[in-house]
């Protein structure tokens, strides 16, 4: 976020923040306090990120109804902190639940770009994993991982709501293992999890 051109006022607060920041950083590092805070706060913020995963209110096809059923009273996904928001700015999980047609390819990439950084993508249902029953179609991409890096695959057509909630569970495991790293730096180090094989 270094938009240098942006100088808010005569007195540049950015300069102040930088200098104060560096000085305190050195002091903390010298006194090893930075490690203590790093470890303890790391656990706390990791718990925070794990316990509140906001998926985007995006319904493409049949899996959207299973997503709604997961949010309803029988399989209450909100028990695990899953709270559907409808603006990509406020979400951290892009739950892709249907086939991606050529016409919807760039809107969904735009949605993925609009989401703030520690973000994950869950491919729910066969259509999102590999184009599903429409893999031969002239208008459907074979799976959402052709355009967006996917973290968790949930097979099923449509997967049951319990599988969706288990998918969020798998995502939480990934977060506790590798922490909430930004998605671009996550690409190589982490193989995507496929439900059912571990």
């Amino acid at each position, binding site marked *: 976020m270094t938009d240098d051109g942006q100088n808010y006022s005569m007195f540049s607060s950015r300069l102040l923040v930088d200098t104060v920041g560096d000085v305190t950083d050195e002091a903390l590092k010298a006194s090893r306090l930075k490690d203590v805070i790093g470890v303890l706060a790391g656990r706390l913020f990791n718990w925070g990120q794990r316990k509140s995963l906001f998926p985007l209110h995006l*319904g493409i*096809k*049949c899996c959207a109804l299973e997503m*709604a059923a997961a*949010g309803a009273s029988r399989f209450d996904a909100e028990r695990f902190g899953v709270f559907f928001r409808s603006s990509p700015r406020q979400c951290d999980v892009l739950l892709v639940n249907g086939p991606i047609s050529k016409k919807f390819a760039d809107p969904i990439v735009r*949605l993925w770009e609009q989401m703030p950084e520690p973000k994950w993508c869950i491919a729910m249902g066969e259509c999102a994993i590999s184009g599903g029953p*429409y893999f031969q179609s002239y208008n459907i991409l074979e799976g959402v991982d052709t355009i967006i890096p996917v973290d968790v695959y949930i097979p099923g057509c449509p997967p049951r709501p319990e599988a969706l909630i288990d998918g969020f569970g798998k995502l939480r495991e990934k977060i506790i293992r590798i922490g909430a790293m930004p998605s671009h730096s996550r690409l190589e180090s982490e193989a995507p999890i496929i439900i059912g094989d571990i």
Partner: protein
Amino acid sequence: MAEMWISMGPQHPMTHGLWTLKVKVDGETVVDTEPDLGYIHRGVEKICESRDFTQITTYCDRLCYASANTWSHAYIYAAEDLLEVEVPERAEYIRLVAVEIQRIASHLMWLGAYGPDIGNLSVMVWCLREREMMMDLLQELGGSRMHYNFPRIGGVKRDLPHGFALRARHKLKLFLDRIQEYEALFDESTVFLIRSQGVGYAKPEEMINHGVSGPNIRAAGVNHDIRTSHPYSVYSELDWTPAVERSSIKGADCYDRYRVRVEEMRQSANLVLQALDKIPGGAETYHEPGDPKILGKAPIRAPEGTSGSHHFEDSRGESMFYIAGGGEGRGKMPYRVSIRSPMFITIPYASKCMIGYKVADIPAIMGSFDPCIGETDR
């Protein structure tokens, strides 16, 4: 304020599915609208040309995912017309039970999605809770929660399981009392009445000319229903009347469409209860799958030049299949499958209905037409 185009884009809480409604807005009132469909067009008609007749039912389940059974039955009736197949009486009754339970589930999904459109979230969770009951019943028949692949050409995949009639009667009676809960939340809430009455007028003659049918046209005080005007299956055996709503003079508004669908839910529940009583051979006798009582003989090839078509009363309107025989594999696969989606015709009409109303009325009007984009984009 100058008029500006807002695009209620593919991803939008109002659109139940993916489509864009470009709205020209002058301040708060809507001046012009233009729908843009095709975001989940997956070429089902092209794929069906290289699938044989039994494989196509799975694609038809996934057309309109809120009412999978009605669509697979619509295809099966057209295929039976193409292959000239006789369906045993008991299979017709079982199909009627499956279709009507699916209609209740589809209307419940609509009511659940209509609540948040107007601002009330608790009705969505209540309706999905009842829909789970209906899906349990259909899961006993078809095996999975949403896409059942239940009908076969010439009959049904499997007979009513043991105790199905008992559970179905219990659940439907419980459901009939639960409808009072929704009516309390909708009818007795003054806020809902303000938001839905006098909004989104549509006259019946204008609607039928635009090709709109189903609950949307019955809301305008006309009892047009494919099940009565062009009776198929065993609807003529059971005594029921299509749910018709006394609309306003300027035509049906959102409130009437809501009333019609709630009435239809009650009516479908009664239809299923009647069918379970009148089913030939009794609801408790169980026939093995493939038994001639529930599955008639059916050829697997359709010679070139033959064609079959069937109009079907889907929960959203009049759906139809036209199949031309004689495709690949010496006729094993159809040459052309054409699908009439009621919502593909209703959405452009509904978006024209919004002109003149406020921006806040767009979800109310669009939601009351119950769009299901899966079938629209095929």
